[in-house]
């Protein structure tokens, strides 16, 4: 098994390197000069040249790349063109906000999905299954930002129950109830947005479990529906869910771009969208680099977890 894990890590490495190369190339291609993020516009050309030499920007591309990669890995992500702030510093301030939004809604969606998916899949073609499946089809076709707008209208404008902007009401920066009130609407939106795909996944996984021989054997031995479902099927359905959780790792950064921007939630999403609109390349590339790294790590993690949990895979390798 250790061999399998090492093999998977070795496969992931070149992918990481290529991704970093692509990000670096895009920065080079982008119509801006890195020196502008450090220098001020009124500096003399000679000073700019000196700065360029200082930061190694006059070196050939491959040396710059190695330098850039080393900086990225050590957490120095460069400076924003627009605000001249450290990107790493800004991101560090925003990632917790995004996680605060994503994590509860993701866990909530996962729990609801497992229940609904099992309920639908265990009685395929039944009434509950049909209703859940139709709702999923509609949900798949619904843009999350539209759900967000409808909720904002009903609960924000019409009834004025929940605040619709930001994380805190002005002057109540440390009030927990205030923060919770701000959290509710975006969390509901993200949960609804996650549900259809995850329910479908659990449902089809449940359906395929019911075609397995062990279910037939249990039935032959006279096991009840509940016994088969809870003692045998659930375990096997939850296995592939682990993969799903692993693959959702990058969501901790990129999961709520649009929802954040609707609610002006001060997370990575609004940061990224603002950067895109103002062509703030260092910020854009940092987010791109880190979210891609998260995707690769998430897939790696999912595979490793799956391998640890499912003895059949260990036996295969």
């Amino acid at each position: 098994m250790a061999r399998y894990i090492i093999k998977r890590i070795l496969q992931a490495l070149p992918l990481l390197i290529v991704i970093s190369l692509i990000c670096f190339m895009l920065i080079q291609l982008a119509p801006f000069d890195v020196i502008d993020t450090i220098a001020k516009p009124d500096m003399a050309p000679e000073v700019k040249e000196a700065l360029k030499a200082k930061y190694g920007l006059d070196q050939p591309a491959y040396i710059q790349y190695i330098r850039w990669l080393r900086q990225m890995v050590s957490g120095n992500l460069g400076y924003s063109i627009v605000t001249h702030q450290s990107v790493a510093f800004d991101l560090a301030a925003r990632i917790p906000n995004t996680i605060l939004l994503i994590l509860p809604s993701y866990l909530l969606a996962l729990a609801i999905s497992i229940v609904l998916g099992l309920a639908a899949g265990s009685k395929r073609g039944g009434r509950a299954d049909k209703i859940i499946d139709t709702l999923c089809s509609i949900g798949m076709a619904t843009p999350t930002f539209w759900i967000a707008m409808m909720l904002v209208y009903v609960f924000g404008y019409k009834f004025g129950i929940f605040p619709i902007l930001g994380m805190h009401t002005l002057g109540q920066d440390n009030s927990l109830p205030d923060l919770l009130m701000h959290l509710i609407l975006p969390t509901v939106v993200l949960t609804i947005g996650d549900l259809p795909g995850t329910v479908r996944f659990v449902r089809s996984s449940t359906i395929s479990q019911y075609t397995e021989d062990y279910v037939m054997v249990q039935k032959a031995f006279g096991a009840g529906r509940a016994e088969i479902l809870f003692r045998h099927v659930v375990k096997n359905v939850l296995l592939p869910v682990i993969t799903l959780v692993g693959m959702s790792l990058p969501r901790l950064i990129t999961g709520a771009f649009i929802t954040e921007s609707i609610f002006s939630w001060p997370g990575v999403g609004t940061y990224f969208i603002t950067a895109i609109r103002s062509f703030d390349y260092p910020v854009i590339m940092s987010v791109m680099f880190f979210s891609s790294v998260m995707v690769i790590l998430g897939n790696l993690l999912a595979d490793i977890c799956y391998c640890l949990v499912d003895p059949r895979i260990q036996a295969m390798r």
Partner: protein
Amino acid sequence: MAMLSKRRIRQMRTELKYNKGIIVAISFLLIIALLSVFAFLSPYDPDALDMLHKLEGPSAAHWFGTDDLGRDYLTRILYGGRISLLVGVVSMLISTFIGVTIGTAAGYFGGIIDNLLMRVVDILSSIPWMVLVTVVSIFLKPGLQAIILVIGLFTWMSIARLVRAETLSVKEREYVLYAKAMDQSNIFIILRHIIPSVLPTIIISATSDIANAIMIESSLSFLGLGVQQPMSSWGSMLNRAQSVLGKAPYMALIPGLMIIFTVFSFNKLGDLIRVFVEPKAIEK
């Protein structure tokens, strides 16, 4: 062959009989396609401003009301549908073309070519699509062509994977082996034997691709990164509606419902096509 197609048609009939949703979906798509083609028949100009009648709710004169500049909202919805459908269909064509080319090439030639092409697919799939598409869109001048290109050029990975997997099994069939033994050219074999055999897969994923492209377009336009004013799609109409949400909720409600119905209908259409081209999958 005749037997087979008879069975397929019979199955399609039963499916239509028991699944009324599909009929509704197809009629909706037909109506919306016709309406957006004949949108110019509307008595209103989609860009004509009328500041005296702005933000009016639905009425007899303006069925869907007017927007914040007094433009007739129904007319704008129809023209918006034109753009949304156009983006959906054209970018589907681009991504299907690339996906099928890459997928068949990888599956058919195997070896290094397969390895290389699939690594490209892996790399592109590693970048979250939202990030990938937005990053690429800043390198292009925003607008209709840019958004079609961006969606078309960066959403072909799943279709390539599907087509490759199918090609791998198709290329071992006897008629392909025979064609190879007859020394027919690779291009000819791919066009004549491989692609027709994987066509069902291609058509199914192409249908869901349209739905996908419409969703992506609406998200991008909603963020202001898609089609630019004065042109509008359902997504950019939602973007505009956001600023007057408190006063004119119908401006947000209607384009959203249009997106939902359209995407839902394309997905249903995909299900129906699946019944037709994969009768075995249904019989299970």
